[in-house]
């Protein structure tokens, strides 16, 4: 086999699969279709609450397109980081969508489900064995952190996807996975160079984002023994050596070195050349195997429950002494929380964002003292339960509304609340609590595979084509 070809259907399942482009890519004889369905960039809420960040109907639409194309081409579909965060609840949510799709389209599928959620007892055992190590910068991770976590997932690499592919499934549905690994798994299993396979995975995993201007479409990749071709499929899409090289910067800390579970992708010697007017030839990437197999952990814990109030300030006298005024407000507020609710400052947190002044950058804002005529105030309080958070917010409502301003004599109303009632219950708030890797004894002990048959008919196994 001297080349392998595959398709990235979209940058994220739920962000949109373009049917025509996928059909056009299918005509080029790809050996699999893949896309990731998750990211930590959506924030800790998806992992903590179990609720995916993408709309269910959008995910269903994209999965339908991908599964239809997979069936039509007789090739497997690989989906990773199911349901945004890739924990069991997210995998099951996605599996239910697949069941709906099969029922509605008279499809039958063999699904290889790869689970990535980690049992707290297992993590405690790994911690005690000294097998959990921090990345930089990392919060403290101890027994309590593990016990407090609502969910923890491990990020799988190519090995688990490869094991799933050995079951000859129509669909690999993986929990949390390295996006690039979804693409690199089969090429590496077939003996293509690891550096090229990972590099190509990195380029196509965001879909058409590696194009000059992104748009609806798919990415077609062809890996050969000493180079690879990256070709966008979609109206007006164009990849250039610059656009592909520049994409390696996006959302990554280091533009040259990428840590994966089994080693490090090194792009320092990577070459990017125009193959055609819209496609790019890449070569030169290397992959250095790690001395140990290290799995990145992602965990979320409950921080508390929040209640929010939004308002605006337009009076120049208040704006002119805003920090003083907000300081007075906090003083009064802390006092009344203590007097009325008998809570100590340690029992709650509050955050105040003053939009129009420094709401986005906080103390880093260089224009903090520029002239302002209006300020948006977002007041937020966090407490152990929703009722307490809302009670505290209600206590803050009055001081924000009527706190005196020295420039005025007489009663003043100092904030324009947007809503009635002003407070909005935001519900549970989560936080990421791990930036660590674990070195398991075996890959299998962290990532578990089961084969699930969906649909009434006997599933026709997908054939992995060989040249």
């Amino acid at each position: 086999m001297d080349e392998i070809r595959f398709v990235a259907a979209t940058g994220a399942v739920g962000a949109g699969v373009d049917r025509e482009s996928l059909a056009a890519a299918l005509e080029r004889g790809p050996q699999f279709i893949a896309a990731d369905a998750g990211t930590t960039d959506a924030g800790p809420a998806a992992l903590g609450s179990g609720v995916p960040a993408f709309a269910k109907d959008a995910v269903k639409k994209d999965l339908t397109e991908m599964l239809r194309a997979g069936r039509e081409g007789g090739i497997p579909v690989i989906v990773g980081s199911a349901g945004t965060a890739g924990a069991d609840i997210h995998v099951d949510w996605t599996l239910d969508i697949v069941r709906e799709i099969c029922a509605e389209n008279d499809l039958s599928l063999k699904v290889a489900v790869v689970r990535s959620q980690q049992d707290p007892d297992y993590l405690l055992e790994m911690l005690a064995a000294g097998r959990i190590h921090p990345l930089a910068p990392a919060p403290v991770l101890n027994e309590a952190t593990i016990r407090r976590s609502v969910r923890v997932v491990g990020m799988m690499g190519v090995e688990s996807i490869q094991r799933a592919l050995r079951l000859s499934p129509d669909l690999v549905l993986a929990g949390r996975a390295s996006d690039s690994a979804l693409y690199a798994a089969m090429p590496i299993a077939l003996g293509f160079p690891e550096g090229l396979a990972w590099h190509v995975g990195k380029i196509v995993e965001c879909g058409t984002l590696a194009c000059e201007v992104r748009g609806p479409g798919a990415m077609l990749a062809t890996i050969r023994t000493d180079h690879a071709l990256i070709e966008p499929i979609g109206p007006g899409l164009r990849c250039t050596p610059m656009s592909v090289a520049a994409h390696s910067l996006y959302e990554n800390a280091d533009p040259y070195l990428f840590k994966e579970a089994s080693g490090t992708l090194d792009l320092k010697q990577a070459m990017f050349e125009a193959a055609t007017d819209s496609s790019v030839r890449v070569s030169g990437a290397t992959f250095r195997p790690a001395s140990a197999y290290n799995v990145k952990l992602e965990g979320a814990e409950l921080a508390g429950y929040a209640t929010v109030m939004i308002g605006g300030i337009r009076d120049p006298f208040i704006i002119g002494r805003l920090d003083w005024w907000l300081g007075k407000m906090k003083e009064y507020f802390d006092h009344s929380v203590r007097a009325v609710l008998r809570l100590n400052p340690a029992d709650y947190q509050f955050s105040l964002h003053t939009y129009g002044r420094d709401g986005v950058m906080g103390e880093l804002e260089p224009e903090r003292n520029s002239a302002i005529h209006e300020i948006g105030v977002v007041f937020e309080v966090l407490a152990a339960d929703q009722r307490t958070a809302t009670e505290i917010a209600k206590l803050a409502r009055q001081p924000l509304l009527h706190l005196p301003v020295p420039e005025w004599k007489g009663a003043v109303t100092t904030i324009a609340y947007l809503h009635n009632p002003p407070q909005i219950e935001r519900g549970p708030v989560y936080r990421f609590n791990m930036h660590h890797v674990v070195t398991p004894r075996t890959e299998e002990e962290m990532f578990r595979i089961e084969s699930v048959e969906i649909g009434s008919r006997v599933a026709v196994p997908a054939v992995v084509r060989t040249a």
Partner: protein
Amino acid sequence: MRLDRLASLVRSKNAGPFQLTFDIMFTGADVYQRVKSSKVLNASLIARLYDCELDSVQFFECDNALAFKATIPRRQVQGAFGDPDLHGGQQHAPLMAVEIPH
């Protein structure tokens, strides 16, 4: 001249929940080289603008992409209570105003 007049893109973004990364990109090799040779963009500048330890700043000159890149620890973990920028996408404005001498 201000950096935002020279660059094709100045952006910030999360690099995972614990880091924030900045990309400063150019379309022409000559402009990129001019900015590079000015030596204005470096780790100390980032440390000063974003009030972080110099040795916590990763700084890269990416010749093949005509880009500069810097990565710093996030001041608040992404999405934590009080974090004002979930995606880290609006933290780049101070870089736009950086003056590049002729």
